[in-house]
């Protein structure tokens, strides 16, 4: 079968990356629900579905490699192809982090009451970031991408707050719960970081510049 023309491959890459972001947003949403509500079955479904994200990533790499091989793209097109390869890695990692949250939910240790709302909020912020990253990947909208960079501040604030709660001498839930909470908070924070990287990659692919250099 002859390779598709380059513009079609580029469209397909954007579409697949968008789909990957939407998929991991859904995974983290369900994983957070499983964590908050102690729903082990839902957690198991998230774990099982992670292979879908890996398959999408493989598809992205295949199309990107074909594009390099058959069309030898240059300039903006080359940036888009390379950035698709890198972005797919970031989104796959987001899927892994959602998986880690689901695995924590599967273990069935209930989340301490005093951090429940914080995790609900981290979940909400992270899922929003991933959905926005999906739109950025699909539409290649630079303004939206630069915006996403700032949205991550909300996650950082939540993450810092969480450490304040843990380090408070009055933390009543013991060390094992603190260890669980530390890692979970880290998973959400990293998930959000990768969503930001997706946006930064898109800015770079479209403009050839890092987001900090964009006067928005």
């Amino acid at each position, binding site marked *: 079968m002859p390779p598709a023309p380059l513009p079609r491959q580029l469209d397909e890459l954007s579409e697949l990356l968008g789909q990957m972001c939407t998929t991991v947003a859904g995974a983290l949403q369900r994983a957070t629900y499983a964590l908050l509500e102690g729903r082990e079955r839902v957690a198991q479904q998230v774990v099982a579905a992670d292979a879908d994200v890996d398959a999408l990533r493989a598809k992205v790499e295949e199309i990107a490699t074909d594009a390099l091989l058959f069309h030898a793209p240059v300039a903006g097109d*080359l940036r888009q192809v390379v950035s698709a390869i890198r972005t797919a890695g970031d989104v796959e990692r987001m899927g892994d982090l959602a998986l880690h949250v689901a695995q924590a939910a599967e273990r069935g240790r209930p989340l301490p009451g005093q951090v429940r709302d914080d995790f609900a909020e981290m979940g909400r912020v992270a899922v929003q970031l991933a959905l926005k990253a999906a739109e950025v990947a699909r539409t290649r909208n630079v303004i939206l991408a630069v915006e996403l960079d700032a949205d991550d501040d909300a996650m950082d604030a939540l993450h810092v707050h969480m450490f304040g709660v843990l380090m408070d001498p009055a933390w009543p839930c013991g060390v094992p719960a603190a260890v669980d909470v*530390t890692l979970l908070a880290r998973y959400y924070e990293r998930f959000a970081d990768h969503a930001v990287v997706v946006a930064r990659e898109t800015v770079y692919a479209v403009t050839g510049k890092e987001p900090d250099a964009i006067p928005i």
Partner: protein
Amino acid sequence: MRDVYQEQLDQLADELAGMCYQVAEAMEKATRSLLETDLQLAEQVISEDIRVDEIRATAEEKAFALLALQAPVATDLRIVVSAIHGAGDIERMGDLALHVAQAARRRHPQPVLPAEVAPYFAEMGTVGVRLARKAGDVIRSRDLGAAAELESDDDAMDDLHRHMFSVLMDPGWSHGVGPAVDITLLARFYERYADHAVAVARRIVYVVTGRMPGPLTV
């Protein structure tokens, strides 16, 4: 022409290998700053991380130039694509060494680690540094046997990581929540550092064989 091209590919590999040695050194120093509560050393690791980021930027420029000007195919294309992935992994290893140094700085002059867990971190540091150096060697040699060795080194890291958790979760843990939180994150940094080194080696296996050796452990 062909020779210049081969030279560029070799240079790209050298650059990445150099990055591996650099992040190995960073982790070695970061671990020492952690174990010896050495603020100056921690600061040094933190200020030197920018160099890793710079090498990454240069390596990526080289990779782009190769793609744009030489339109490589087959193994050469795999090399360039793997270099782009590898540069990302190695930069992340630098970030993780930086996080270790930041933890040492944050708690200074207090030690981060209670004496009884320090030896495990010394060992995690040793294993991590060895993995980073081996990843650098594998980039140069493309030796599949050496690439496979990284997998077993990584198992050693996973064992140390698991052991660290059993120490923390033990009802006899007497150091309270604060140090436990620090140790949880630090152990995770070492474990992720090792995973990225393995990812680099796996990409080399892919360059040589055209196949990825199984999924990454996460």
